[in-house]
């Protein structure tokens, strides 16, 4: 392992980290602007041009707010909750292939922090740790509403992770690899997965709403029944971490959908483009293409959030276990039959 490799990876890691943070920050701004647009309002427009400095102002506000501890027997867990939520939200982006190879300083640099061969399993593993952040924080709050939210969040995430995992299996059957890089490469030659697996895409999309706790699955923090849900008792930056983790998760989910189903950094006529303008520029365009897809899905999350009502707890369970999981299983069987017949 040479020092240039370490520098290269450090730069990529810092860039990916910064990108995740930046996107999570500006998702909050985008959420407010999109909500304002849908509700016939103006939205934040005081801090900076078009309210662009609003996330910074919010951050500064949260840092300077009083840190409140409820009367809880376990302060350590109360702090651990948001810490887990935040860190799991940030480490998922390590395995995302952000772009094709580029050639700089005489080296081929891969725009990915690490290409582990079980990246999908890694993503799922990290997502399931994420629920501990909510559970521990809510439980340590010593508040009945938070506790109810913790119960809802954990059962919701566990149920929808099953359907999500089953939806992905059909993709894995096609790609034969668990690496996100391989899945992307496969789509550059064979066409985007969404064309072959529309049902898996829809199931995955619905489950990703549930995994990120967004409307219509925001039962864990529905302000009308549970006040603030798991972050009712939180204040200052600990609360900021929870909110931030939600937006980081949303960004990661949008990225994973784009990578698995929409070809990642692939864009039409990529091969021709590579010949015409060279590798580095193509990789840059590829990165922008991925970014455009991510932004579209983030917008989609917001669009849904500000349009439709949320489910009730029992209806959510019904949808997860009785509709999505059977559909995902059927999808696996059909994929298997088709693969045996035509391959």
């Amino acid at each position, binding site marked *: 392992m040479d020092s240039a490799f370490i520098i290269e990876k450090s730069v990529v890691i810092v860039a990916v980290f910064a990108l995740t943070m930046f996107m999570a920050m500006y998702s909050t701004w985008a959420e407010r602007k999109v*909500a304002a647009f*849908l*509700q*016939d*309002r103006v939205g934040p427009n005081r801090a900076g041009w078009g309210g662009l400095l609003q996330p910074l102002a919010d951050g500064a506000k949260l840092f300077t707010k009083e840190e409140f501890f409820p009367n809880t027997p376990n302060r350590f867990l109360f702090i651990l909750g948001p810490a887990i939520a935040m860190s799991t939200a940030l480490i998922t982006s390590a395995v995302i292939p952000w772009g094709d190879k580029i050639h700089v300083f005489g080296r081929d640099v891969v725009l990915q922090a690490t290409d582990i061969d079980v990246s999908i399993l890694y993503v799922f593993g990290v997502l399931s740790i994420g629920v501990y952040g909510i559970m521990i924080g809510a439980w340590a709050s010593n*508040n*009945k*509403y938070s506790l*109810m939210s913790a*119960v809802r969040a954990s059962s919701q995430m566990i149920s929808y992770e099953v359907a999500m995992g089953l939806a992905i299996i059909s993709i894995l059957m096609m790609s034969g690899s668990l690496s996100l890089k391989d899945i992307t490469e496969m789509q550059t030659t064979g066409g985007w997965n969404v064309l072959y697996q529309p049902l898996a895409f829809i199931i995955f999309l619905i489950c990703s709403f549930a995994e990120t706790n967004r*409307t*219509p699955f*925001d039962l864990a923090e*529905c*302000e*009308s*029944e549970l*006040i603030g849900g798991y972050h*009712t*008792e939180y204040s200052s930056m600990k609360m900021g971490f929870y909110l931030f983790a939600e937006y980081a998760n949303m960004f990661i989910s949008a990225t994973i959908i784009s990578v698995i189903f929409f070809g990642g950094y692939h864009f039409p006529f990529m091969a021709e483009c590579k010949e015409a303008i060279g590798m580095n520029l193509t990789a840059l365009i590829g990165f922008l293409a991925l970014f455009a897809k991510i932004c579209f899905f983030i917008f989609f999350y917001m669009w849904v959030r*500000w*349009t*439709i*009502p*949320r*489910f*009730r*707890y*029992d*209806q959510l369970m019904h949808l997860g276990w009785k509709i999505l999981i059977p559909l995902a299983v059927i999808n696996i069987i059909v994929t298997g039959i088709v693969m045996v017949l035509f391959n």
Partner: protein
Amino acid sequence: MGNVVLPADHRYYKYIEERHNEDGSELAILNLGPTHPATHGIFQNILLMDGERILDAEPTIGYIHRAFEKIAENRPFYQITPLTDRMNYCSSPINNMAWWMTLEKLLDIEVPKRAQYLRVIVMELARITDHLICNSILGVDTGAYTGFLYVFQFREKVYEIYEEICGARLTTNMGRIGGFERDWTPKAFELLDVFLKDFPVAWKEFEDLFTRNRIFIDRTVNVGPITAEQAMSYGFTGPNLRAAGVDYDVRVAQPYSSYEDFEFNIPVGKSGDTYDRFCVRNAEVWESLSIIRQALDKMPEGNVYHADVPDYYLPPKEDVYHNMEALIYHFKIVMGEVPVPVAEVYHPVEGGNGELGFYLITDGSRTPYRLHFRRPSFIYYQAYPEMIKGSMLSDAIVILSSLNVIAGELDA
């Protein structure tokens, strides 16, 4: 939070002990309110919960009780109107008009047709805002915020009309004995025309967003149903009774303020569940719009806006300054020294969320001997514990907002 200290001999503890012995699971007591964001006011419900399911509920009232009925006994009649504003503050002009009509019934005053029609218009506007708030808040409580903010701007438009009529927006204190305090300005009619043009478009969009939305239907159909018999035995009126299938509407049953001149339908539901209540209110908004249009069309010519009752209606200001009789009348009316018969009257109107009645007993003095408000919210809230028993916590919130229980009216 969510904890509450109950007396040691409270019935909940007995249940908890019994259930605990039965199967090892534990019941919990959840304190919903009094300052819970979803209760839109100050309600407390102490719930006995089995997980997410509500087994029993104990409501507490009186958190914003302001003793209006007692205060009214010490006030001259015209000073009671501001109290009525603060009951159902989503539709205060209806409360104001109902109070003036009660007094006119007491004093046997015939209000000119044009003033009656103006009253009909302002009351129907108030009904629209009331239903608009109720239905859009129901959307918020199911998680859809956008519908609420989208139609809410039209409540502001209505408030601008109120502002043009009486100068106030929320607590209107509108009207006088025998009519209005001043004629409506041309601008008020202009604003009304704009409202009648723009609002139906937005309301149609709002309806389209919810009425066929699968999630909304799942959340509201068969949630908090109440049969017609139950509803009537509790004393339900208004949209909540009509949702259960009883076509009782005070505007038709006992017409007041010339409601008999207008043609409108009374929308009724079937099952009395949350979805029916939502749909009945939606339909009533359309009927109200139609009534307003009819009233504008049939409006008599001229600029009469109050009855000729010099004993009760303040003389013009110029006369007060230059005319002795006018000054005396002005003084007497302001001091509340108006001739009042010894009588007992009850006047019901169709309020925003049910039959709003004023039961007034006078003993000939300047203040009422006794005044009772028949407040529909108070009656709905009695049925609330029974309606939420066995449902989920989310349903309880939705049921409360679909009943349109207003804390100010409940506690008066």
